[in-house]
């Protein structure tokens, strides 16, 4: 198990380095920060000074070398906009995103498993058809549209909930509800399919022959077997939330990492962009490791 974690960590390190290289060079292609930061009437000397101050006058490779050296010592540079360490800025935003993702995915997972399992238990029944319809709609509705409609209805017309920002529990409700819809729709369908297979399996027949009640047959015998493909999809969906739900965070003015990334890209705040990518990539790597371990936990036949 430890050697598995080491192997995975090494493989992920390589992809992290690749990611770093790509993002660093691509971000330098998007324009000159000096002309963006300084007023239009700034002189050439002022620009040169600005570049020298931030090391932007060095050749790209030298800049990259310095950057990698700094990263290895835990220094991700300063945010050009906020004059604070980039890492601090990112971690602050990431905490918001993490909470949003954790709460949403917990709700999604619990609801999707219950609904998907019950739908699979009586395939073709009313509940199955109803939940199939709901989940199909959920999986296909564009979330930005849903977000805007939700704001119009619940925040503006009914005035039940705040339109955007943070500050109270009520501020969380709309973003969570909107983010809930798509992963819920997708995961319900995966749970349903996987549970239909599990419920028609031979070991379920054995359980019925033993006289086991329906509840334990669904939620003890079949569900644990059905969870493997489901976990993969949960991980996938969680990853897209951890990346920062860019559009939703922007619409709701939610200070998460997705919104931070977009803002920093628009402002050429390279250090923050790079730090945000590193932090989310690391988080996704950790989550994948947890998923692999969950496989082994759920299925004794999987051993690393």
């Amino acid at each position: 198990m430890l050697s598995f974690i080491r192997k995975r960590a090494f493989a992920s390190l390589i992809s992290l380095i690749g990611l770093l290289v790509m993002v660093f060079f691509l971000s330098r292609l998007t324009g000159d920060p000096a002309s963006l930061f300084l007023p239009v009437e700034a002189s050439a000397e002022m620009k040169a000074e600005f570049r020298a101050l931030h090391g932007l006058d060095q050749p790209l490779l030298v800049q990259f070398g310095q950057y990698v050296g700094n990263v290895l010592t835990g220094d991700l540079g300063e945010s050009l906009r906020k004059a604070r360490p980039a890492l601090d800025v990112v971690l602050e935003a990431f905490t918001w995103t993490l909470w949003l993702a954790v709460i949403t995915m917990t709700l999604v997972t619990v609801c999707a498993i219950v609904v998907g399992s019950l739908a699979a238990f009586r395939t073709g029944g009313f509940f199955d058809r109803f939940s199939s319809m709901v989940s199909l709609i959920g999986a296909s509705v564009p979330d930005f549209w849903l977000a805007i409609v939700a704001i119009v209805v619940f925040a503006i017309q009914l005035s039940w909930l705040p339109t955007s920002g943070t500050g109270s529990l009520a501020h969380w409700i709309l973003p969570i509800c909107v983010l809930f819809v798509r992963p819920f729709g997708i995961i319900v369908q995966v749970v349903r399919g996987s549970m239909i297979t599990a419920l028609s399996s031979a070991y379920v027949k054995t359980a019925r022959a033993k006289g086991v009640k329906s509840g334990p047959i669904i939620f003890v015998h079949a569900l644990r077997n059905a969870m493997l493909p489901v976990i993969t999809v949960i991980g996938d969906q969680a990853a897209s939330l951890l990346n920062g739900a860019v559009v939703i965070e922007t619409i709701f003015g939610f200070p998460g990492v997705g919104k931070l990334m977009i803002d920093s890209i628009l402002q050429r705040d390279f250090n923050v962009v790079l730090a945000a990518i590193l932090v989310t990539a690391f988080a996704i790597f950790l989550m994948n490791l947890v998923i692999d371990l969950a496989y082994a936990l759920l299925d004794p036949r999987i051993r690393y």
Partner: protein
Amino acid sequence: MADHLLEVRNLSVDFHTASGVVHAVRNISYYLDRGETLAILGESGSGKSVSSSAIMNLIDMPPGKISSGEILLDGQDLFKMSSEARREVNGRRIAMIFQDPLSHLNPVYTVGWQMREALKTHGIGNAKAQEEALRLFKRVALPDPERALDKYPHEFSGGQRQRVMIAMALALKPDLLIADEPTTALDVTVQAEVLNLLKELQRETGMGVLIITHDLGVVSEVADRVVVMEKGQLVESGTVREVYHNPQHAYTKKLISAAPGKGDMHEPATAGEPILSVKDARKFYGGFEALKGVSFDLKAGETVAVVGESGSGKSTLARILLRLEEADGGTAKWKGKDLFTMSPGELFKLRRDLQMVFQDPTQSLNPRMTVYQLISEAWVIHPEILPKAKWRERVAELLGQVGLSAEHMGRYPHQFSGGQRQRIAIARALALEPKLIVCDEAVSALDVSVQAQVITLLDKLRKEMGIAFIFIAHDLPLVRDFADYVMVMQKGEVVEFGTVAQVFDNPQKPYTQALLAASLDPDPDVQAANRNARLASAS
């Protein structure tokens, strides 16, 4: 009159499918008393398992429907009970074991957990359940029972898993045990042990046993009475002896005559050079030596049967000969050239000569290809064999050769029965005009009567086309009828090699003798004599 333990009266079960109503069983009646063993004998599709599923309430309704009849357990009609009452009956009064214990045990829970669940479901406390589970594991002679409880199903061998199933079924001392093909997936010696265990347990508990099987040998070994089923109908019933010696119905007669192991044995021709000469073939999987130096020769038109139990290395041998896996030592001279070290280019040309027919035609035929595509694909890969203009004609000819007809060309594999699918697989192998066909358990999955047809076909091909066969099988009577030479393998080694007559009539090695002794004879009298001889030699 006292009630029978179990009585099935005029049971009919239908399945409502998209393509119409299927009458799975029609008006069948049978009974079973305490301490008695009744066998339901039938081939696939005969509906032999349907009545037991009805007894256990395992039929999904819909699409299933009990259209008539009743099932009485001690005079009480199961169909009139509430579903909760039937759930209570399951496990407590009637228990069931299945053909494939690996898929019938939940892979993600320990067997101890599954044992305790069976007990706890019917109101036994945790501590008592643990104690009982251990007692039962000891009773079914699982090695190291304390530790076995904490293991998962995949950590046991097939025979051990079936012992776990039996222990679980007997947990609540049921009055009736239903065994659905309990030994079909097991090796012969393990089959003998499991059947023996079932009989011992029956003597101890006095339960009635309903055994569902396609194997006449199993019937003659364990059953008192037998009912024969064909196409959902019960065609014959009686004591095993009566039915075997004096079958009334044409279908029963056909089944009995199709049982292999009664024909003349082959006298292998001795002339000619070997086309394949294997010397000291070895294969390792990591540190495990799967083949420990296997040698044999094969001449054109000859059949070598490779027999042995699971783990003996017989399939590994097939795979390295066809270079589906690389050998780790030894040579295999095919017309003077070493198969094991041949370059990919040479091997490609040689693929024509060496073909393989697998056990499960459902899996080895691509379900999205028509029969024509499946067979002619060989010529797409080896275009030198046949110009495209003649493909249709040749496919029709090949289909004729394997007993199908040209009109089957446009159909897909799922439209055929198991036996027909295996014929398609054989036609596909023949398309390349091979010199050697390796059959890996090629008829094991087929019904006895279909098995006989496929064997006849293979024998015809051997005689007419001089094809040599390596015939991997675990079914000894079948080998006796078809092979020239028999190679008995155990744990990667050749234990015994000889002509069929030598090996079957005068086995030299104890392992071969044990294999032959464990093989079941369809004749109840012969089987009883074998059993007595075995018991006598054991004591």
